[in-house]
């Protein structure tokens, strides 16, 4: 992106009707580590590629539990993501306290989006530099949403964000038609395959240290699958030939 005259303040439109600061914020999301989210009729799955700052360091957490029926994958500024995650947890817990039932996923995502929008219209405040992939299950079924620093949110069947996510999107576009009837296992494998596309060739590949998986579904509270628990799926990935679409 090139420097423009109209990009130094959030409160200034450009002559073409864009707010550059918001777009720059979305750049932060694109630079983040990649993640893939996809859903079937009964489950929503998020798969993430964790990064570490060096060999000495640990891998940055990317998946967070928001409530029993909702989890998120973050891409971008982790600190901003934590704030939004806490906000989502509080709103979800508050709703549960008042109404004794789970908040609908779209409703929570709308709240996050509305909160993000405020930061695109107030002088002195910057947008949140993080995009969330929200995976949830409520009375209306499984959901995947993406939120943006701009305050927009989108409902998806499958999506990926972060660096090199276009390759993952290509895989998802080719295969998404069969997702609805996939078993949980197949869904996770699809997610891992899509994620694998985002790794640059010179890198190590998917292993139990840099992959984490989150699953939520019917009678299945949001659960994180990390470290050793990911091994069965990674092994299946190794031994698998390209997509045998089994309908259950």
């Amino acid at each position: 992106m090139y420097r423009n005259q109209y990009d130094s303040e959030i409160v200034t439109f450009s002559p073409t009707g864009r707010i550059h600061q918001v777009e720059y914020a979305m750049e932060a999301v694109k630079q983040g580590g990649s993640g893939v989210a996809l859903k079937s009729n009964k489950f929503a799955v998020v798969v993430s590629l964790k990064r570490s700052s060096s060999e000495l360091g640990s891998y940055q957490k990317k998946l967070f539990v928001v409530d029993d029926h909702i989890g998120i994958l973050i891409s971008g500024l982790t600190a901003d993501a934590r704030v939004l995650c806490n906000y989502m947890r509080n709103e979800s817990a508050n709703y549960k306290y008042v109404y004794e039932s789970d908040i609908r996923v779209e409703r929570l995502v709308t709240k996050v989006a509305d909160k993000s929008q405020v930061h695109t219209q107030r002088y002195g405040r910057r947008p949140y530099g993080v995009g969330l992939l929200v995976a949830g299950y409520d009375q209306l079924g499984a959901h995947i949403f993406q939120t943006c620093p701009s305050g927009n949110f989108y409902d998806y069947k499958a999506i990926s964000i972060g660096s090199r996510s276009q390759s993952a999107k290509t895989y998802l576009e080719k295969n998404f038609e069969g997702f609805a009837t996939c078993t949980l296992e197949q869904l996770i494998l699809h997610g891992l395959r899509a994620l694998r596309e985002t790794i640059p060739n010179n890198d190590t590949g998917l292993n139990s240290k840099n992959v984490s998986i989150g699953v939520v579904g019917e009678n299945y509270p949001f659960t994180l699958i990390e470290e050793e628990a990911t091994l069965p799926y990674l092994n299946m990935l190794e031994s698998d030939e390209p997509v045998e679409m089994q309908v259950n």
Partner: protein
Amino acid sequence: MNVLKLTPFPTQDKEKPLNHGRFEPYVDNGGTVLSVAGKDYCVVAGDTRMSDGGYGIQTRKYTKIFQLTNKCVIATSGMQADTLALQKKLKVMLDHYQKENGKVMSTPAIAQFLSNTLYYKRFFPYYTFNLIAGIDEEGEGCIWTYDAVGSHEKVKYSSQGSGNQLVIPLLDNQVAKFNQLLPEGPKDVPLDQVVSFVKDAITSAGERDIYTGDYADIVVIDKHGVRWEKFELKLD
């Protein structure tokens, strides 16, 4: 001449409205809860009768015991409206703690947290008489007993509620072995014997206390988790 005159009934008093008094925010729904801790288990009993504060029964099937974690339950007598509000508050905080700290809140931590929560409302208390029973981090059975504003103590047995005065002497004598003329030696009592004893204790409370009866929940907490059993008491 003094004439005995009948004065007319003062009309002013007739027109004065009845003195309703202040709004009374508390009611005691009655009932008894008790608990005995063993070496690596806890047994809790709570009757399920809810009264209206007088001679009426609002329901026979309202449980006074609430499970907080896989290792801890809270049993409460007193005003059930406050009990429900308190349980909801605890649950939210427990979930919050779990997400923040990545682990389930330990029973001693819950015990302290309940005390703080109760004291927070020192000047408009929860009308609740609580009992926390569970397994601590070492796997030992433990019980904390509370007053309405959070004063608490870790004990090996306790009871609360309308039948408290009937049950507590029994527990003193049989569990702590106080005041026994022919003292028995200390022995490790097996779980099923303790359950049996607890059932006897709550049955006895039901016999003499009008607010205790109908059914009782018998809850056992041990390393395998929390097990519930329903036990019948007298309906009178």
